């Protein structure tokens, strides 16, 4: 079969059911191959940036790899902000870009751009295919890289002529990477970590987005309950731990709730789980002179000791690590610590009864109105995002979708569209935005209206 048809077969094999994109000359052969393929929904966006954000929103909502396609040159460069957004938040996305014919490469052909060079630092990996014999293996590797280990975006650049070359398609099951067995050093660290947890007097968990991408929310909850550990969440970690839980202290960080931030400041043991100790959640906590111990649990060994010199680092698959740490029994008495935290919760409880019509009031109202409903919140970036993070009550993983690391204004609306397509009728998407983000990517309302997607937008202006 032709290269373009083989690419479509490969997408099907990888479980792809939805593609976001915008056509152009160099990607047209792939669009042509999608013409007869009814098992893949092809969503035409109004701009390539929105296609990338929509694929990202789809991935965050579904846990699957999001896919976007674009043509060479401006189509490809328009994806960059979306890829950078997914990269900073470790979201699995595969972007396929058309490229000028192999015979024209490097000759400044019409709509030629070195998209490999451009996206090198904002993708987990990227490829340019120059030989049709390597087309399918490259694409399969791209999906495997995007979803394995610490997830992230991967770009595959395909010159137009390869779509017309004969390609042999042999079906293959998607590769599932299995985590390796922990070695002796790891087991020693885990035992030390369990000992730290059992002797701590003022422990606190920082739950990050890594808990959600590892599908480890049940294990986190069991771990926190077993050792009676108060839990704060980062902006990306909203939904990793149920907000209504007695151990939840809510958002920590630059605009974190005071009980959550004070808990980090006063803690003698900070257990960061799936969080990279970003500067915003921890307020450069590493520079503080206090004698705090740290345990850092993350899928990515490169994060251990990067931002905080951790006392104990445990890199690996999160579910297994949490189960391992739960093998001991709690011995420490945390009554005084919990009494202190309860006092802060009461002292700093927000006042929603001031009588004024403000955003915190509206967020609290929505939190109550949405309780027990199936919904997911997708935000843009700015004040509304922080108010939503503080005052909404998200109980479930994938119920909160936001651009955390890159802070991309304009992310909200196209991501809400992608999320709503992933959720179908299982969850209603509540999109919260400020007026600025709407001016950036509001054009995507055209697609939302065309598809009749029940996205409910709340603007704070």
């Amino acid at each position, binding site marked *: 079969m032709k290269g373009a048809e083989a690419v479509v077969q490969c997408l099907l094999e990888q479980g792809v059911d939805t593609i976001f994109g915008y056509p152009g000359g160099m990607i047209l052969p792939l669009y042509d191959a999608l013409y007869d393929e009814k098992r893949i929904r092809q969503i035409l966006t109004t701009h390539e940036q929105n296609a990338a954000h929509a694929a990202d929103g789809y991935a965050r909502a579904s846990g699957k790899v999001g896919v976007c396609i674009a043509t060479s040159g401006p189509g490809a460069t328009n994806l960059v902000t979306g890829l950078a957004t997914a990269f900073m938040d470790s979201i699995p996305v595969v972007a396929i870009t058309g490229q000028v014919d192999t015979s024209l490469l490097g000759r400044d052909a019409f709509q030629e751009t070195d998209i490999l060079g451009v996206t090198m630092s904002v993708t987990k990996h990227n490829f340019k295919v120059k030989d049709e014999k390597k087309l399918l293996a490259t694409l399969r590797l791209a999906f495997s890289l995007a979803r394995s280990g610490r997830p992230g975006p991967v770009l595959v650049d395909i010159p137009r002529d390869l779509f017309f070359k004969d390609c042999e398609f042999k079906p293959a099951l998607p590769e599932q990477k299995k985590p390796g067995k922990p070695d002796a050093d790891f087991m020693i660290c885990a035992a030390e970590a369990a000992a730290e947890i059992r002797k701590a007097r003022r422990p606190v968990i920082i739950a990050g987005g890594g808990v959600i991408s590892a599908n480890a929310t049940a294990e986190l909850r069991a771990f926190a309950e077993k050792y009676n550990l108060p839990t704060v969440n980062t902006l990306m970690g909203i939904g990793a731990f149920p907000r209504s839980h007695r151990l939840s202290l809510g958002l920590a960080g*630059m605009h974190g709730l005071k009980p959550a931030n004070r808990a980090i400041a006063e803690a003698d043991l900070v257990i960061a789980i799936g969080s990279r100790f970003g500067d915003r959640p921890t*307020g450069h906590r590493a520079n503080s002179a206090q004698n705090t111990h740290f345990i850092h649990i993350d899928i990515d060994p490169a994060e251990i000791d990067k931002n905080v010199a951790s006392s104990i680092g445990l890199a690996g698959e999160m579910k297994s690590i949490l189960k391992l740490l739960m093998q001991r029994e709690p011995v420490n008495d945390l009554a005084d610590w919990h009494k202190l935290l309860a006092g802060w919760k009461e002292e700093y409880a927000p006042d929603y009864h001031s009588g004024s019509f*403000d955003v915190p009031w509206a967020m609290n109202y929505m939190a109550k109105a949405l309780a027990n409903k199936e919904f997911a919140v997708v935000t843009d970036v700015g004040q509304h995002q922080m108010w939503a993070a503080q005052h909404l009550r998200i109980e479930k993983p994938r119920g909160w979708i936001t651009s955390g690391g890159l802070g991309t204004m304009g992310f909200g609306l196209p991501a809400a569209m992608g999320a709503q397509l992933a959720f179908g009728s299982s969850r209603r998407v509540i999109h919260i935005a400020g007026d600025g983000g709407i001016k950036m990517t509001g054009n995507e309302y055209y697609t939302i209206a065309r598809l009749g997607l*029940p996205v409910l937008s709340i*603007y*704070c202006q």
Partner: protein
Amino acid sequence: MIRQLQKVMYEERYIACDLPYPMDYALYVQSFGIEAASVASPDEFAAAFAAALTKDSPQVIVLNVERSFVEPMIKAGVIDEFVEF
């Protein structure tokens, strides 16, 4: 948010964040055929939100709220010291 940073760090020298030229966001989304409500009080919002939840189509609610600042906000680099507004 820019306004908030300019208040805290730039002596309230507000630039590139005040937009005196208005835009009608409800009218904007209505041009796509999307239903929109513009609300300015708790009661109006409650009614619009309840109505929007019952519909299986795109909905927009524009909140006309007083400008304010996101609190708490920590001082640079210190997690338990907060900016006073």
